[in-house]
Every structure is written in structure tokens, then in C-alpha cells.
């Protein structure tokens, strides 16, 4: 029954979205708003349970009194619930898998790690943007995030995207296994060189320099065309997916 209902809802919402292709209408608006709301709720829930809870809240120490006194919301702070030696996730307190008697006798566990108070403080500093007098403090966690991301990505980009790609650009043109391979290597070399010349703006693009730059434009156009072609293919695949779903729905009816 639930599956049938799901198929019907999916099919009707698909048709509602498709109806926009004719013209804007209330069915499309309803489906669009529903999608936006459900997506926002889903991602908010996912972000909390997959990031904030396991990476922060579940690692902080909370007094037993707070955990017990917080009632149904205590699962937010509890990492694990131990009942008769069996471990459950924190949300077992509210998902109905444990009886009130079991919860009363359960041992509530947090993974206590003092170092997690640093991200907690940094995270809270983001909210200082709401107080103009100390808003500058919000730059500190931002600086941390930017520094960490830059440090993490710099060397991998240098290795994988710069060094390796330069190496694969400059390959032998003569003496290759096949003539086609040599021609291919030459095209890659010319394309990269001409593309780089196009993006060199410290000199006016005229004469020989302008001609090479123009060749660069042609290579870029080919690359954009390939990217566009693949994008069209991807979008048709998505359409195909919805049509397959609609076909299954119709097959179920007739």
C-alpha cells in the first residue's frame, strides 16, 4: 500500500513539474514549493544527524541530570544508550525501539573528548555576526575554515591537477607507437598552448600573438561544445528516468 501510494505521489508530482513546460500553473507551483520544503527539511536533518551530532554534540560531556531532565530531547546529546549490555544509537530514546522502563534503567553515554570544545567555541563565534559590537569575532572561525581548506587542497591540486596534467600535456609527438597517437599528442600540446595564450592579457592580442589566441578560442569552443553535448546527454537521461517511472506507473494502472 505504501509503495503504491509512493508511486502515485511520484508520478503526479512529475506530471505537475512537467506541466510548467506548457505554462506556469498552480500544480507546478505546488510541486516546486513542496520539493523546496522537503529538500530543506531533509538536508537540515541530514546535516544535523550526520555532521553536527556525531562530530560535535555526541562528543561533549553532559551531566546525567541534564540528559535525564531534558526529556525527549536528550537524544540530541546522547551518543549511545546501553540497555542490558546492548548498545543503541542516541535516537533510540525517541524512535520507539526502547520502552519507558528500559530508558529509565539505561546508561546514557557520551564520547567525551575535550578537544571538541575548540570547534564548539569556534562554531559559536559564527553567531557573533548577529551582535554588531563583537561581529569581528566571526572572522576567526572563518579564517580557520579557509586556512584549513586551503592547506588541505593546495598540495593535492599541485600534485594531481598541476604536475600530473603538465606531464600528460607534454608528450612525445614523434616516435610514438602509432602516428595517430603522435598527432593526438600534438593537438593536445597546441590546444593547451593556444588556450594559455588566449588567457594572457598583458599583451594586446594582434599579429602572430592574436592568431595563436584565435586558435585558442577555437579549442575552447570545441571544449565548451563537448561539455554542452555531455550536459544535453545527462539531461535527456534524467528525462528518461522520469519517463521510465511514469511508464511503470501507467503499467500498474492498466
Amino acid at each position, binding site marked *: 500500500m505504501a509503495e503504491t501510494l509512493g508511486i502515485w505521489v511520484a508520478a503526479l508530482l512529475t506530471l505537475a513539474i512537467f506541466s510548467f513546460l506548457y505554462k506556469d500553473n498552480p500544480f507546478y507551483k505546488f510541486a516546486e514549493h513542496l520539493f523546496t520544503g522537503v529538500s530543506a527539511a531533509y538536508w537540515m536533518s541530514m546535516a544535523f544527524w550526520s555532521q553536527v551530532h*556525531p562530530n560535535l554534540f555526541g562528543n561533549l560531556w553532559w551531566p546525567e541530570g541534564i540528559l535525564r531532565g531534558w526529556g525527549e530531547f536528550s537524544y540530541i546529546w546522547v551518543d549511545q544508550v546501553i540497555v542490558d549490555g546492548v548498545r543503541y544509537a542516541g535516537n533510540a530514546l525517541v524512535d520507539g525501539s526502547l520502552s519507558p522502563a528500559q530508558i529509565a534503567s539505561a546508561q546514557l553515554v557520551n564520547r567525551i573528548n575535550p578537544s571538541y570544545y575548540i570547534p564548539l567555541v569556534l562554531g559559536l563565534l559564527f553567531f557573533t555576526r548577529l551582535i554588531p559590537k563583537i561581529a569581528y569575532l566571526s572572522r576567526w572561525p572563518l579564517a580557520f575554515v579557509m586556512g584549513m581548506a586551503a592547506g588541505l587542497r593546495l598540495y593535492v591540486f599541485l600534485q594531481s591537477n598541476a604536475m600530473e596534467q603538465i606531464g600528460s600535456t607534454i608528450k612525445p609527438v614523434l616516435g610514438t607507437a602509432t602516428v595517430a597517437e603522435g598527432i593526438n599528442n600534438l593537438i593536445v600540446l597546441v590546444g593547451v598552448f593556444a588556450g594559455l595564450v588566449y588567457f594572457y592579457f598583458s599583451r594586446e592580442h594582434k599579429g602572430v600573438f592574436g592568431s595563436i589566441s584565435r586558435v585558442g578560442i577555437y579549442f575552447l569552443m570545441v571544449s565548451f561544445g563537448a561539455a554542452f553535448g555531455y550536459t544535453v546527454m*545527462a539531461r*535527456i*537521461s*534524467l528525462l528518461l528516468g522520469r519517463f521510465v517511472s511514469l511508464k511503470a506507473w501507467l503499467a500498474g494502472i492498466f
Partner: protein
Amino acid sequence: MSFLAKVSRLDRRWIYLMIALSVALPLVWPFSMPVKVSPHVQSVYAALDALPRGSTVLCSFEYGPSTMPEVRPMADAVLELLIQREHKIIVMCLWAEGVFMARDILDDVADGRHHLEYGKDYINLGYKAGNEVVIKSIAESFTRTYPVDTRGQATASYPIMQGIENLANIDFIFSFSAGYPGTVEWVQYAADPYDKPLSTGCTAVQVTEVVPYVHSGQCRGILGGLSGAAEFEHLLRDKGILPALGAANTGMSAQSIAHLVIVLFIVIGNVAFLVERRRQRKY
């Protein structure tokens, strides 16, 4: 008004209708079209074929429901090949929705079709937040990154994880990717720094981003979009691994017709534009 002038002012809804029909009709009356296996797809097969039986392959699911029509057929075919070669499959997800995608396909292929034993032949470690940091983390330890699997049991307790401490113990990585984090991150944080062989099955949108890694040898081939999946299905059928062509080929005939219609409209639109411009210059 001439025919070409009418065409150049054609209501876009007629184009939508034509595209819809070109996709829908081949689904109602399916037919097959010739498929030529490209060198990139050959490379994927060659890389997987070269693995000794019983190797440990890490499959990462980085796609969701919206990209399922493209990536699911290739995941289906790749898992079929891995299972028939008796490789051990460790599944993990860098996307939260990947967990559902992985569960769905493992239920169908590993459990339903081949009756593999969970925890011995394959395992689903699930999703861990952190994007590329998760890749860096499994390079140090699988069990610390994933203390429990999707069934809530200790990862270290499963037979398949015995002797698998970190990325160094993985023989091959396969990324089913639809964006960030995905194949690019696997190249940057696993394949290159730890010299691990990697292949990918990704959405068509990603192909131009990933192909440079294929040309440089950082990635062993690529299954690009639905066409890549269709080619791989053909290859596996010809090798006797798949009994019949799968969902990708069914979709590919519809896709090909839709492409022809789009190309036709582009040609007609350009001819109409050029003729109109010439006529305007004349008068």
C-alpha cells in the same frame, strides 16, 4: 510567411513535445541501436579484468535519486563483473543519498541475484560526513572512520574486514560519481598520493572534468553517462558476463533518437536564421 520564417518563430512547446515523444516512443516500442565500445570503456574493463580473483575492491557511491538513471546501470554492470570474479566488495558512500542507492543495488545484485553473504563477500559501510576528509581518514584506518556499518554492527567484527586496516589494503577503487565529492576527490586524495588504481562511472556532465585524469593515466578509463554504461553492458555481454543487455541499452535507443531530434532542430534553426538574415540584408 515562408516555411523557414515560420520555423524560426516556432513555439518552443512544439520542441518540448518532439523531445518528449522522441524519448517516450522508444520506451513503448523498444529497439536496439548499434553501440561501439570506446577505448575509455575498454580501459575500465581491462583494469578490472587484470585484478587477480579475490581482490578487495572499494566501491564508493556518490550519486542520488536524480542521477540514478545514468549511474545505476553502470553500477549494476560493474558489480556483476566484480562478483563473478569473486572479488570482495567494500561499499562506502561520500553522499548521504548514496547509502540508499548502494543498499538498493546490493539488495538486487549481491543479495538477490548472487546470494552473497553479507560481511564475508561484501559490506556496506554507509555514509560518513566530511567529503574528501573521509578519504584521507580511511587512508589511515577503516575501522576508526567507520566504527560501525549500516547495520549498526562493529566493522572490525566482519570477516571481510580482517586484514583490511586502511587504503593500503585495497586493491582497486571504483567511484560511482555524480559530482562533488566524487571521482576528482578520489583521484586527488587516494589514487595519486597512495598510488591506487582507480576507475570511475560518472554522469555525462562530469566527463569533461574527469577525462584529463584518464588521459594522464591517473584514472583507468571512464564510463561516461548512459552511453558509457551501454557500451560497458555490450562489452560484458560479449564477454559472457552479462546474459543480456540491461537498462542502459534500453535507454540508449531513446537517448539516440532524442539526440537526433535535437541535432535536427539545431540544423533547421541555423538554416532558418541564415536564410532570414540573408533576406533581410537583401531588402
